[in-house]
């Protein structure tokens, strides 16, 4: 029997339309803009000014706060201005605007394709370098990777988990990366193991990607510490806590981080970025993005420079704007609808999904019939119908007692509800309010 997590979970249609499409690099347009807030935590502080010339790989902004990250230039060009842009929700956010003049790289970056397997740096220097080169979690949450690698005092990491699950329907960027860069990913895994001082790593991959499982198993076979584990397909297996439970049976306690049970989880995309940073000195300036959906004529996987507008990718993949109803950054379960296709690809954009008009709307909301399907579906063991109701009634103390903050916003409850209730909408708002209340209480 294949492993999977215990509680809840759902089985949305996989729709991996672009699984067979090789990763295809695309050129950035003449002007790009790079948001200053690209990771969880505080926005980065620009270190360039208007008129400066930069090369690809040069640093643009530094993350000063503990949870924050550096940002580098993906192109060579001239800084046009540092100004606000309108983000995916239509609100103002600061960004660095660059006029692209060419693709000249900073000399320190090794651009060759040659595989480098020997790890020279020691653990501490690896973490330092990961920080300098602005690596963040590429699974979607964009948590700065160096912070995750610094194990807090008194805790011990014993197992590294590499997340190759890609449980979101439609998305195939991690899948393609595993097929095309398996040896780099294995080396990246070894680098991360060295940084953490662990001897064991498990790469978890869902059973719907047998090619990736076989390929990585083959390359991992020469390293006894690395194991590839096939998992039963179930959403949201890519959630850290779910993946840890599926692979080790350990449960991360409520409100705690994976390190509490000795685990550190990194996404395969992040692992590849770490390989490039350590072995090739290449900062995180590009990523693989899946552009997909029934609206798109050629669902594709692109290697995209950070800062490239979404519209460029959509054009390349052949979208049909007249039929499109909704453009989503990320997957259909956890992604966010865009207000504007001129927003740039950022470090956290794993995919762009275009839905046709008729697929875009929610079904009509009906009263809750107390079927408890949402309760069975919730991977965190919560009671979504109850949390949504108490949030709606603004009874935030009850929401807090109901462990609303444990919700990982996976959307399983809203997906499964036969009455199409907007459960997660209410829960999100409730989480926001409960967080506010806790903050003011602690002041």
């Amino acid at each position: 029997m294949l492993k999977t997590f215990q509680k809840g979970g759902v089985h949305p249609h996989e729709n991996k339309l672009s699984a067979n499409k090789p990763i295809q690099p695309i050129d950035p347009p003449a002007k790009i803009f790079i948001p200053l807030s690209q990771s969880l935590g505080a926005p980065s502080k620009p270190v360039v000014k208007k008129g400066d010339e930069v090369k690809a790989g040069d640093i643009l902004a530094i993350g000063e706060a503990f949870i924050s990250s550096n940002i580098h230039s993906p192109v060579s060009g001239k800084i046009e201005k540092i100004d606000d842009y309108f983000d995916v929700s239509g609100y103002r956010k600061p960004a660095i605007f660059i006029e692209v003049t060419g693709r000249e790289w900073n000399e320190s970056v090794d651009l060759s394709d040659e595989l480098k397997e020997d790890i020279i740096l020691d653990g501490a220097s690896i973490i330092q370098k990961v920080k300098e080169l602005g690596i963040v979690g590429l699974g979607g949450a964009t948590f700065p990777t160096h912070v995750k690698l610094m194990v807090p005092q008194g805790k011990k990491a014993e197992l590294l988990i590499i997340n190759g699950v890609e449980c979101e329907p439609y998305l195939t960027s991690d899948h393609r990366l595993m097929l095309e860069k398996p040896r780099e990913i294995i080396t990246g895994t070894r680098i991360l193991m060295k940084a953490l001082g662990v001897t064991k790593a498990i790469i978890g991959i869902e059973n719907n990607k047998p090619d990736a499982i076989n390929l990585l198993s083959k390359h991992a076979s020469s390293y006894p510490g690395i194991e590839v584990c096939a998992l039963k397909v179930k959403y949201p297996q890519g959630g850290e806590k779910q993946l840890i439970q599926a692979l080790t049976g350990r449960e991360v306690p409520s409100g705690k981080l994976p390190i509490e049970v000795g685990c550190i989880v990194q996404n395969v995309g992040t692992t590849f970025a770490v390989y490039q940073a350590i072995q090739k000195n290449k900062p995180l300036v590009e990523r693989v993005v899946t552009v997909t959906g029934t609206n798109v004529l050629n669902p594709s996987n692109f290697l995209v420079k950070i800062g490239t507008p979404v519209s460029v990718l959509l054009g390349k993949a052949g979208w049909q704007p007249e039929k499109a109803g909704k453009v989503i950054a990320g997957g259909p379960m956890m992604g966010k609808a865009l207000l504007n296709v001129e927003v740039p690809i950022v470090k956290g954009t794993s995919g762009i999904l275009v839905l046709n008009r008729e697929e875009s709307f929610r079904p009509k909301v009906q009263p809750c019939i107390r079927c408890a399907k949402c309760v069975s579906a919730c991977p965190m063991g919560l009671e979504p119908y109850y949390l949504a109701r108490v949030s709606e009634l603004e009874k935030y103390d009850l929401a807090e007692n109901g462990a609303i903050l444990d919700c990982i916003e996976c959307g399983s409850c809203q997906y499964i509800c036969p009455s199409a209730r907007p459960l997660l909408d209410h829960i999100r708002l409730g989480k926001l309010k409960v967080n506010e209340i806790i903050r003011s209480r602690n002041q």
Partner: protein
Amino acid sequence: MDSSILYSIITLGLIGAGSAAILYWVASKFKVEEDPRIDAVAEALPQANCGGCGYAGCRNFAEAIVKTGSLDNLICPVGGDEVMKRIASILGLEAPAVESMIAVVRCNGSFQNSPSKFQYDGVKSCAFAHITFTGEGGCPYGCLGHGDCERACTFDAIHVNPATGLPEVNDKCTACGACVKACPRNIIEMRPRGKKDRRIYVTCMNKEKGAVARKNCEVACIGCNKCVKECRFDAITLSNNLAYIDPHKCTLCRKCVEVCPTNCILEVNLPPRKRAAQSDSPAEITA
């Protein structure tokens, strides 16, 4: 048979009388001496229990007034001047001047003025829509129209008009301030009702530069400064590309309304303008 009924009645009667005696004794022995003025003040209050005064209910407010023994900063917005005068006379204090206030909605981005660019089918909650996106009209400062203010109002005084998508305040408003707190975009302001219920204010909250603001809404304040220059009473200030009219300085002369290029200054309850009025004619027109 008969006697058993009799005994029951007698026993129960005795128990009842005994309990009554005990309760009477306890009540008089442990009587809490309460200031009788609290009752008097509480009776004078409107009993709306809306919390507009900042206390949990009318009685808590009465206790607070009697305890502090002064009326500084203690105002029942619902009762207004009249009630505060009555309370002052009960306590033998000077009645504070209470300005009668009303809620005003500072956004005019109706479906006509700020047509929908997106379709939102999430929950009908302004608070949730606000954390999700700018709103269907595209203005990140404008009214979302899902009626959090309407739901917060216990006086049936504010309703979202389905034709415009904007809330409208009616005369039942008691200035309790519940809607001000409920609005995630701080669109509702408490303003003095004004002489003869006449008011002039800017119906826009957009702090973008003119061109950006106008892109989403016909009647956005573009920060052009014309009204500021026009006002002879220094009542208008401009900050962050947005004009604000100080209700205490405004004399309702309506000059600003005439010069505003986007018509974002609203006059309420002012009489219709004389058509061919000369620009320097006295602005005060009586109905």
